């Protein structure tokens, strides 16, 4: 499949023949008897920037965690980069090295420095030499604008800095798609902007992203698709302008009324 370059001027009107990176077909998931995801069908193409929003308990985090098998789905297919997600541990590990994830709680390794946090996975999984891994890490630390903190420990950094390190750490594996699970929800307001700016830079460079967030400003500015989830179902999936100005479903309208009040 050929992919036409994604120009920033008219991304929404250009018909892109990009590769499919994540394909979810008829996926259902239960926690015991309680169904948390119902009939999920989702196609993510290379270069897509998708924001997933919705009330708490709607299953948005669960959905993206199914993509790197932090959660297991009981029915349906989840296919990442052509590899189907099943019990097979080899597939799971392969998929995980192509899917990067950033967590609400950062989850940096506290006993390792920033640099060591970043080089750990490339050296262990991609068998990189230490010097190459360090050069790579420095490159991404520069991209998230904190190269000078390379030898500090996570406890010495602010929340915003820690999250940016977490982003750099995930990027060091050079994944094909990045998952963000409410990356700014645990941050003080003054630090949210620096993380969102970093994510915006990433988006502009063409990274495929799925982002669960409550930051509607970010969605409007950066996303090319906004998905609304409620009670385990994908309710609405459209471009930001249609989503915010002209939501199709009542549930979406209600949610937007509540969220956009302040």
């Amino acid at each position, binding site marked *: 499949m050929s992919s036409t370059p994604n120009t920033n001027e008219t991304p929404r009107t250009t018909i892109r023949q990009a590769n499919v990176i994540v394909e979810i077909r008829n996926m259902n998931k239960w926690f015991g008897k309680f169904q948390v995801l119902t009939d999920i069908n989702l196609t993510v193409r290379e270069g897509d920037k998708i924001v997933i929003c919705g009330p708490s308990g709607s299953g948005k985090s669960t959905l993206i965690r199914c993509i*790197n098998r*932090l959660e297991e789905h009981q029915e349906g297919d989840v296919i990442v980069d052509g590899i189907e997600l099943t019990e097979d541990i080899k597939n799971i590990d392969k998929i995980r090295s192509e899917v990067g994830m950033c967590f609400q*709680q950062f*989850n940096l390794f*506290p*006993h390792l420095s920033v640099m060591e946090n970043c080089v*750990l996975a490339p050296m262990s999984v991609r068998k990189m030499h230490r010097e190459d891994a360090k050069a790579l890490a420095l490159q991404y630390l520069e991209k998230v604008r904190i190269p000078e903190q390379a030898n500090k420990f996570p406890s010495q950094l602010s929340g915003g800095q820690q999250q940016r390190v977490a982003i750099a*750490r995930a990027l060091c594996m050079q994944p094909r798609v990045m998952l963000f699970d409410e990356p700014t929800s645990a941050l003080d307001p003054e630090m949210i902007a620096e993380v969102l700016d970093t994510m915006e830079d990433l988006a502009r460079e063409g990274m495929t992203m799925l982002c669960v967030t409550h930051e509607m400003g970010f969605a409007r500015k950066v996303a090319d698709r906004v998905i609304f989830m409620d009670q385990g179902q994908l309710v609405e999936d459209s471009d930001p302008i249609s989503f915010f100005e002209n939501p199709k479903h009542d549930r979406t309208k209600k949610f937007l009324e509540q969220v956009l009040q302040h």
Partner: protein
Amino acid sequence: MNFDYMAIWENSDILLNGLSMTLLISAITIPIGVCIGVGICLMRISNNRILRWTAISYIEVIRNVPLLILIFMVFYALPFYGIRLAGLTTGIVCLSMYGGAYFAEIFRGGIQSVPNGQFEACKALGLKYSFYMRRVIFPQLLQYVFPPGTNIALTMIKESSLLSMITVAELTYAAHDINGRTFTPVETFAAIALLYWLISTLFLNLAERLNRKLGGDQIADSITIR
């Protein structure tokens, strides 16, 4: 009040032999106990039901039966099934297994105390189980296992005194020996108590140094209660 130092001094060779035996037993059984503990712990938390059940049974048996009875069973009862172990061997086997059961539960508690997000970050990066348990989880659980772990090790040092009942010539046996010759229980047992105390202090010192070397104090030291 007469403190008959001479009784102790004249028999210092017996004391020293006993001391070195206790030190030897401790030096052997504590590391073996830790290794058994790691093994049993991994079995205890595995997804394999057989492994898990074996570990649980092992821990239950060792914890619920007095160590002395365990020692007697191995020393006196096993020969009827063809397994005759010397006193020292019995002691080392029983003490190691005893420590192993407790260490297993301590390590399990330590693993459960490491925040779940750490495991998720490791998985999300595609790290292998054996790799991340060693390099990410283990260093973080040191701060949780150090206090109870040193407790168990100290207990093992003191419980080695039980081996005197199966003719192992360690410190407690030496005490009975000297007392039998000199009839000076006050001085003898005071000396023994002092020696056990010295061994324990020495051990705690070593443990603290090992802990610092493995990086276990970085996080723990910063926790204070105001």
